């Protein structure tokens, strides 16, 4: 082996791992980690929880990836794709943990590609269409602030695997929130048009927030997220809107009409060609 670039490695055989893309050649992102479910932890409950957090990440990553070749400029396209990639990494670990903990033995591909929309447990905010750049930014701000608050607490989870996934995720999510917050301020405090779009985006996102807070048993998460949203809105010269929350929750399998087409695109190849390699 004379050089070690990713490109040369692609053309080499990796024993039975001749593939390198998502879901292939790297079958177990938790490989070699002690995956025993600790005593006193309900495996089914832990599995369902990891699955829901994994679904939030996968669906968000898919929406962010849709900005590729559509973002306002190259830097933002790379930023959004990078954030999506972090979330995809989180989804892979959480799915793997979910399949181990619930005893079903399902792997990440089973969970990502071979479940139907009603089996997904992501919050509805994650699946809404991208809308304009302002909506994407406000949604990213809300979701990353919420996920950061959740992951900060999960670093103390009784499950050491979930705690470790959360500890890694905290640093990434802080970066995502920072990116979204800076853009939110720039748009809100920008031109008349960008401000108008920010106001509209905040009004569109706000009704879905109660669903995020209700998804967690910890009651201080909502206050923490609201404080961040008010801080950012204030810095942008705007006020975070007070709205009536939308009833229902993706955590119960209740989704908008937007999830099924998203999954059709995400799952189409894997279902048409099970076990496909490239």
């Amino acid at each position, binding site marked *: *082996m004379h*050089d*070690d*670039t*990713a490109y040369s*490695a692609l053309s*080499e055989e*990796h*024993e039975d*791992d001749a593939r*390198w893309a998502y879901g292939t*050649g*790297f079958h177990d*992102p*938790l*490989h*070699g*980690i002690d995956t025993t479910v600790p005593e006193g932890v309900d495996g089914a409950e832990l599995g369902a929880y990891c699955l829901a957090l994994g679904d939030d990440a996968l669906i968000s990553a898919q929406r962010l990836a849709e900005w590729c070749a559509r973002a306002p400029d190259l*830097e*933002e396209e*790379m*930023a959004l794709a*990078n*954030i999506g*990639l*972090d*979330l*995809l*990494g*989180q989804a*892979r*670990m959480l799915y793997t943990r979910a399949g181990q903990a619930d005893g079903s033995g399902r792997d990440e591909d089973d969970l990502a590609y071979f479940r139907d929309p009603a089996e997904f447990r992501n919050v509805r905010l994650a699946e809404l269409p991208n809308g304009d750049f302002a909506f994407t930014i406000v949604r990213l701000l809300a979701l990353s*602030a919420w996920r*950061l*608050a959740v992951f*900060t607490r999960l670093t103390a989870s009784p499950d*050491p*695997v979930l*705690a*470790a*996934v959360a*500890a*890694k*995720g*905290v*640093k*990434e999510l*802080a*970066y995502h*929130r*920072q*990116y979204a*917050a*800076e853009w939110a*301020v720039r748009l809100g405090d920008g031109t008349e048009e960008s401000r108008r779009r920010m106001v509209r985006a905040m009004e569109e996102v706000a009704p879905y927030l109660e669903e995020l807070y209700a998804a967690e048993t910890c009651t201080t998460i909502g206050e*923490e997220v609201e404080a*961040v949203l008010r*801080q*950012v809105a204030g*810095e942008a010269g705007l006020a975070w809107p007070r709205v009536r929350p939308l009833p229902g929750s993706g955590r119960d399998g209740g989704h908008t009409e937007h999830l099924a087409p998203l999954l059709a695109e995400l799952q189409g190849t894997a279902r048409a060609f099970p076990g496909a390699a490239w």
Partner: protein
Amino acid sequence: MVTATDLLERARRAAEEVADPELPMLTLADLGVLRGVEVGEDGAVTVALTPTYTGCPAMAEMRADVARRLRAAGFAEVRVTTVLDPPWTTDWITPEGRRKLAACGIAPPGPAPARRPQGPVPLTLSPTRRTVPCPRCGSADTEEISRFSATACKALRRCRSCLEPFEHVKDI
């Protein structure tokens, strides 16, 4: 006669020399992602790696490269395991790794932000005053173009003195 210590030393050296797929001027040892090398009584090698970013797509390549390199070094059975805790930070990049990055025109990271044991992560919206010196001309007068660059671990900056753009390994 090859002792167990010799074998371990040989395995360790082979694993340490594997280059990072995305920052090929760095070895896995320079990057600080190599968490342990063990040789079992049966001669099987176990190498523990830790990912940089959760979604880092180079992780699969690193595992494959480590296995390949060790097999080439004469170890028939190689296992590559993952370690998540404690999480990797850029503080794990060695001084030698930092020197190599700078020599290739990539600004090495500063100290990673301190980990808060508890409580919310604060959001700072005022511009940060931290300077990243230009790896080409050394000027401290540089600006961030984008926090996200060609790989998850790097930001894109520009030097206001020599006007060259450069990459910066983000402190994380």
